[in-house]
């Protein structure tokens, strides 16, 4: 253990000495897996307590134990000085513990106020009172939320704020947020962290689960690091050594991403060095020619998008989310017919051809939404890894499951997909392993001509992110053209050869992928022409 703080003495830590929530030797097993193993922890009123750890470290399980979703196998919990044995989430809510889950539970077609009345109104509905309370809470914690807005039309950040208001309406003493920033675009993360701070300052305790270090530095009072279900480090933020936290989290020394990728890039330079950008002899991998998408309301989502990516090249598409990236991704995946324009993979025009033809032409697609588009989560890992190649394992109409599972097992080894086996259900995998499985499917197209990856590292931990980047570079080295769509500028700078910027559906500029261009690209992303 890194550094154990015996009692809260830190800067913003609680004035009182008794912890609001105390866990003593808590343990939870799922089968043979110890998801939470002998964890003792104290949470104090008035503090933002960050739970840091990679996917599968036990953070969510710990939150679910506190919130009463699971019951612990060992140890005890105390909440507000009393033994805490919640029968379920309902009791937790009544007792003053509220939780914002990663996946929202809102009815998209109802308004904010209707959604909030759902759980908390009995008998007659007091629409106006509720709306007033919503505004009041929003004001108290320094943000705005329109109670009459339809939830389905809100941004992710606003939907999340709706969830937070839902929790705060119950005046909880403890607010638990499970990876709240994983779903947010970069611009909205800051305001969420501000809300967390204000909630803590109002005398409540906040547990914030994350694996992004920058957030911890910004908002945490104390940090607890979990790995493999165990508590491996605990620190006051004021005195914490970030390097030590990272080491504790991943259990090894992490080379900085830039360094790791630089090595890769040198290797690329050595192998394909003679060819430089603009060389007319370099074959084209992906060509978009004037792609335009209008939605059914007639508003333009993507306008005259023209881009050419050569074999072996990695092009980053930067932009704040909602500026046409999703539409572009859907068009290139063969799932959306553009209103105008054409696109080619290699020499094949695929504008109207559909998803199967994109795959056949060597277009690997890593969709933005892993659960909605990339996979069928209720099916097995093997089925998902060969979802587009099931025909290869079919004889007389019957699926040769043995051969399918063998092939999947091989791919799982190659791509380091960790699961109980090819027969495991896809939804049981961690986000990183799910993404690796999708990558394995799309990168093993033969030939792989072009790869289009949208927000490929969202929600992944550091090790998984590194693996994904390596796969992209490797694909480029083998001659594929890669289009990396991302709202994370650092990611683009680290991986891409050049960066183009999308703003309100239009390409507004192109820059080399250099750290020194960061500000210029950022300005383009926010609509300021450079």
């Amino acid at each position: 253990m890194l550094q154990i703080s015996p009692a809260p003495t830190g800067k913003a830590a609680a004035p009182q000495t008794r912890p609001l929530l105390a866990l003593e030797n808590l343990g939870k097993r799922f089968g043979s897996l110890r998801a939470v193993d002998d964890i003792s922890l104290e949470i104090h009123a008035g503090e933002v307590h960050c739970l840091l750890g990679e996917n599968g470290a036990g953070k969510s399980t710990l939150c679910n134990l506190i919130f009463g979703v699971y019951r612990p196998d060992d140890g005890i919990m105390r909440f507000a000085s009393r033994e805490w044995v919640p029968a379920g989430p309902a009791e937790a809510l009544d007792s003053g513990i509220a939780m914002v889950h990663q996946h929202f539970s809102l009815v998209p077609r109802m308004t904010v106020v209707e959604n909030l009345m759902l759980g908390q109104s009995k008998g007659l509905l007091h629409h106006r009172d509720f709306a007033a309370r919503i505004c009041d809470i929003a004001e108290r914690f320094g943000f705005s939320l329109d109670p009459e807005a339809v939830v389905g039309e809100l941004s992710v950040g606003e939907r999340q704020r709706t969830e937070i208001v839902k929790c705060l309406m119950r005046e909880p003493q403890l607010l638990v947020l499970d990876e709240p920033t994983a779903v947010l675009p970069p611009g909205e993360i800051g305001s969420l962290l501000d809300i967390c701070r204000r909630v803590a300052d109002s005398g409540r305790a906040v547990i914030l689960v994350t694996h992004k270090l920058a957030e911890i530095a910004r908002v945490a009072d104390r940090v607890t690091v979990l790995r493999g279900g165990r508590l491996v480090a605990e620190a006051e933020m004021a005195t914490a050594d970030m390097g030590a936290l990272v080491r504790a989290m991943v259990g090894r020394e992490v080379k900085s991403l830039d360094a790791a990728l630089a090595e890769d890039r040198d290797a690329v330079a050595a192998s394909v060095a003679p060819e430089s950008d603009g060389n007319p002899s370099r074959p084209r991998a992906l060509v978009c020619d004037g792609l335009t998408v209008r939605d059914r309301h007639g508003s333009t989502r993507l306008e005259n998008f023209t881009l050419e990516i050569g074999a072996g090249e990695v092009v980053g598409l930067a932009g704040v989310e909602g500026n046409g990236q999703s539409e572009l991704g859907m068009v290139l995946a063969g799932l959306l017919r553009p209103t105008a324009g054409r696109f080619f993979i290699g020499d094949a025009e695929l504008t109207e051809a559909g998803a199967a033809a994109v795959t056949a032409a060597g277009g690997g697609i890593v969709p933005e939404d892993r659960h909605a588009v990339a996979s069928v989560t209720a099916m097995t890992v093997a089925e998902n890894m060969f979802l587009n190649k099931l025909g290869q394992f079919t004889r007389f109409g019957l699926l040769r499951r043995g051969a399918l599972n063998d092939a999947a097992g091989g791919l799982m080894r190659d791509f380091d997909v960790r699961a109980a086996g090819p027969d495991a259900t896809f939804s049981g995998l961690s986000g990183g392993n799910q993404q690796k499985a999708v990558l394995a499917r799309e990168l093993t197209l033969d030939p792989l001509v072009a790869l289009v990856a949208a927000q490929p590292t969202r929600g992944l931990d550091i090790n998984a992110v590194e693996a994904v980047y390596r796969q992209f570079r490797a694909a480029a080295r083998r001659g594929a053209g890669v289009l990396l769509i991302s709202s994370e500028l650092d990611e683009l700078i680290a991986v891409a050869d050049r960066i183009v910027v999308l703003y309100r559906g239009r390409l507004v500029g192109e820059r080399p992928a250099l750290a020194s261009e960061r500000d210029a690209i950022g300005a383009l992303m926010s609509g300021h022409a450079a």
Partner: protein
Amino acid sequence: MTALAVAGLPDRRRLLRLAIPLAAVVASLLVSLLLIAISGRSVPDAIEAFLDGAFGTAFAIGASINRAVALALVGLGFILAFRANLTNVGGEGQIAVGGIAATAIALYGHVDGLPLGLAVLLPLLAGTLAGAVWGAIAGVLKVRFGTNEVISTLLLGFIALLMVYWSVQSTDLLRQPQTSSATLPESLQIPVATRLPGLTGDPESPLHIGLVICIILAIVTAVVLRRSTFGLRLRAIGLNELAARRAGMPGGLLLVSALALAGAFGGLAGAIMLQGEQYYLKTGFSSGYGFDGLVVGLLSRGSATGVLAGALFFGFLRSGGISMEIMAGVPAALTLVIQGLIVVAVAGSVILVEKLGEGPR
């Protein structure tokens, strides 16, 4: 909890797994008997009539099994479409169009003298095809216009029932030639050559080769659902249509073929009912089998074995119920209430047992 109790748990659970459905059936039977007693009928008479009608004679058993065959076919079609997350509630109409097509071919298709069993086979195929078309219409509506298949299959069912009515009312269609004012609005009897051959050789037994067809199709369905790539694709499109399309599956085609298959099973059931037992088409020909088959499909939880078991259960229940009405004078409405009670008890206990299997968290 003590170690002893934990160790004893599995045995107790296994016992409960048997005891719960049994207790549910016994309880629902007791309530049923109470209802019969309250209605003023003789309880022993009712019981005797029920048992007689369901299992009393070889004929009764055969009739019950024939009934089960029709229900099973509709149920098999239901679980096929349900694999693609499509709920086919149009079994009744699919039986009806199957019956119409089979009658038309059997009576006026000149199949009478054909060799190699074609006289029997062609009307069966016509019924199957008609049902498939009926199901496919709902599929196309869904793919093209996003019409919910629950609505479209149900409404297509009503259309089909009225088509039966129309066909047997009009002499230009299937109504038998009107020789007197007493001629009923029914079709002629289909020729003997087009009727399904008996299974036992005993001319008194109503059992026919529909049972064999049904068992073969149940096996085929089970294999398709469990082992085939087509079954897996249906599952994928049912669970996540967008992901399935992204993986290059022909989404629209899969959905249409799933409903067409469900319809084909219903149409075949109609043809078998006509050629195996009824021999002529009349209004009300489908006699609610489509809806009973839907319940069989729902209760089977997607398993072909479950469909067969459920169909047998319903087949005997219906036969016994009808006999109870006729022999013991139990009102038809009360018979339906009793049958409903038993179904709810069985279905409820199945769910309870499943929950028990999951065990406490």
